[in-house]
């Protein structure tokens, strides 16, 4: 008897489809949850994250530029992670989300400053999550007047002036108007998928145990992997139905832009749906009854919503929370989907967010298979 048979898998898939079709409540949940959540989270959630990563792109390094950078860091809103003179590198850091801000110091800045020309610096911000950048940008305005107080003394004192010796111009990239829905709505897609996919599959195996049908299933020659995959497959479709609902809402109701490739979207969502389904099915094979499965699902959902960067800006969280967040699929999906929809990221830029999901699937599915109860003991 072969260890894995597509034919038996097909038997399970068909059975699950029919059962799903007859389960009105699940059907209602599939459409209802996205609609309710979209309405609920239509408003913004604000917070005040600090120590956001900053890259400085500068052609020169003078006491004046150093003072400005120091002043920025001193606001507590920024941590300098990279000093570079390459525009390409700075852009890439921003697109990958490695930094949230890039301060560009143009060539000849110091000379212009000393000549009293009030030169401008350019501060680019990744504004996909406006709440994460708003306070930091406000703090930047403060330093215009103060950064160089100690440098501009003696004969240069007049440069301080009323308008400040230099200006900082802002450029909000990806979401120039700072519309929070742009951030919330793609994020919501991740939250909704996490919630429904996990909860629906978490019940899949425990239901068989509780209805007593597991005894029959175990007595038949179906393999654990066939049962698990067979139960997952119908929900992939359910997930795509939800994505369609949310995408429609974000396009027609919230007017969220759609920058990236459609194929990448479909593939990325598939990976994320699979990650959640494996969590659900593993929860299901680990728990003893449906109540336990529900509890475990919530145990997973709560940190997903709180620590993934959906509720609070990821960089605003303490380190331990970021560590937990990094282990959650939603965190990576949020980076992926925001990058795709708002930044128009391509495959290469999406990959750093997709491989953690694939790794997650492998590990979780492995745990589920190990813990799948092959007997009634």
């Amino acid at each position, binding site marked *: 008897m072969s260890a894995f048979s597509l034919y*038996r898998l097909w038997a399970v898939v068909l059975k699950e489809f029919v*059962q799903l079709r007859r389960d009105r409540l699940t059907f209602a949940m599939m459409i209802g949850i996205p609609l309710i959540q979209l309405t609920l989270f239509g408003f913004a959630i604000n917070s005040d994250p600090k120590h956001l990563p900053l890259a400085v792109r500068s052609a020169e390094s003078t006491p004046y530029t150093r003072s400005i950078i120091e002043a920025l860091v001193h606001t507590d809103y920024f941590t300098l992670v990279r000093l570079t003179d390459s525009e390409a590198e700075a852009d890439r850091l921003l697109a990958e989300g490695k930094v949230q801000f890039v301060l560009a110091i143009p060539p000849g800045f110091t000379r212009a400053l000393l000549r009293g020309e009030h030169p401008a610096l350019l501060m680019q911000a990744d504004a996909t999550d406006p709440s994460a950048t708003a306070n930091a940008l406000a703090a930047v305005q403060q330093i215009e007047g103060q950064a160089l107080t100690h440098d501009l003394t003696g004969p240069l004192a007049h440069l301080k002036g009323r308008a400040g010796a230099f200006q900082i111009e802002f450029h909000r990239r990806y979401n120039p108007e700072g519309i929070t829905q742009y951030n919330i709505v793609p994020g919501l897609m991740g939250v909704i998928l996490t919630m429904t996919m996990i909860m629906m599959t978490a019940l899949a195996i425990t239901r068989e145990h509780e209805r007593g*049908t597991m*005894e029959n299933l*175990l*007595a*038949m*020659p179906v393999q654990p992997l066939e049962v698990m995959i067979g139960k997952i497959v119908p929900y992939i479709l359910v997930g795509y139905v939800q994505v369609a609902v949310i995408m429609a809402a974000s396009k027609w109701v919230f007017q969220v832009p759609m920058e990236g490739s459609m194929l990448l979207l479909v593939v990325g969502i598939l990976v994320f749906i699979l990650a959640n389904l494996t969590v659900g099915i593993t929860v299901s094979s680990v728990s003893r009854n449906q109540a336990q499965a529900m509890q475990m699902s919530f145990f997973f959902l709560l940190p997903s919503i709180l620590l993934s960067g959906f509720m609070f800006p990821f960089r605003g969280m303490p380190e331990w929370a970021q560590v937990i967040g990094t282990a959650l699929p939603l965190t990576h999906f949020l980076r992926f989907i925001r990058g795709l929809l708002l930044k128009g990221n391509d495959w290469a830029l999406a990959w750093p967010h997709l491989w953690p999901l694939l790794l997650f699937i492998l590990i979780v599915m492995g745990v589920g298979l190990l813990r799948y109860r092959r007997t*009634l003991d």
Partner: protein
Amino acid sequence: MTGQEAIIDVRGLSKSFGDKVAVNQVNLKVHKGDIFGFLGPNGSGKTTTIRLLCGLLTPDAGEGQCLGLDVLAESRRIKRQVGYMTQRFSFYEDLTIRENLDFVARVYGMSGRKAAVDEALHQLGLEQRQHQLAGDLSGGWKQRLALSACMLHQPKLLLLDEPTAGVDPQARRDFWDEIHRLSGRGITVLVSTHYMDEAERCNRLGYIAYGHLVGEGSPQSLVEESGLVTWLVDGPDIHRVADELRQFPAAEQVVPFGNRLYVSGTDEKALGQALRPLMQQAAFHVERTEPRLEDVFIRLMNTSREERW
């Protein structure tokens, strides 16, 4: 039609749940073509034993073969050739009758699936209702559906856990005719039941009490080996007579049956003495009869209880 090839051959099978020993050192041998009746009071370990045989539970101790395959190591291969009918209906109530049968046929990788399912539906007489949900069937029909589903893949060994509980007499008779037909084709059947008439239709019986297999053999040999003597008492006012007889320790079992009384015991002499006053009354007719299987089983249960306590 019993061959010599042992289809089930297990020794020292044990299983506990917590500190409750459900199956205790059971040795079981069932030959090809046997119809092996598995009897015992509620909670005695019948279902547990059957689950151990088809690999649904892992035994704490014991070893042996099922269909020539190792019960411990090869349960996956055993499953392919076994048809197991659970005591509690465990097909999908939210699938139709046909969908349930289709599912089973697919899982076993049956080639002529449609024909096999059609045939099963025909034999069941459920062709008209094939698109009804299994959950909407009456209890007896559910049993019949489950039975035909577990025979669908033509297993070599049938493990049936109270297959006829709640099934009407005609359907039960049809079922037993079918069992005998299968037995004639060399299929082995282990069937648990609480019905005495069904026990009598088996060619071998095993009686389990408190997890111990306390009696085994053909119905005839079980009766002979029990050492029971049974008298049939016919006469007026049978219930008062029954109460009087129960005063005698030798009258171990006094069972009213309509207007008659079955009185059984193992001490032939003492029992005869207890009945002598009745024999001398003209109104009563007292005669020796064959012990019934039921009396044999109740004796087996009582003695194993005495040994336990």
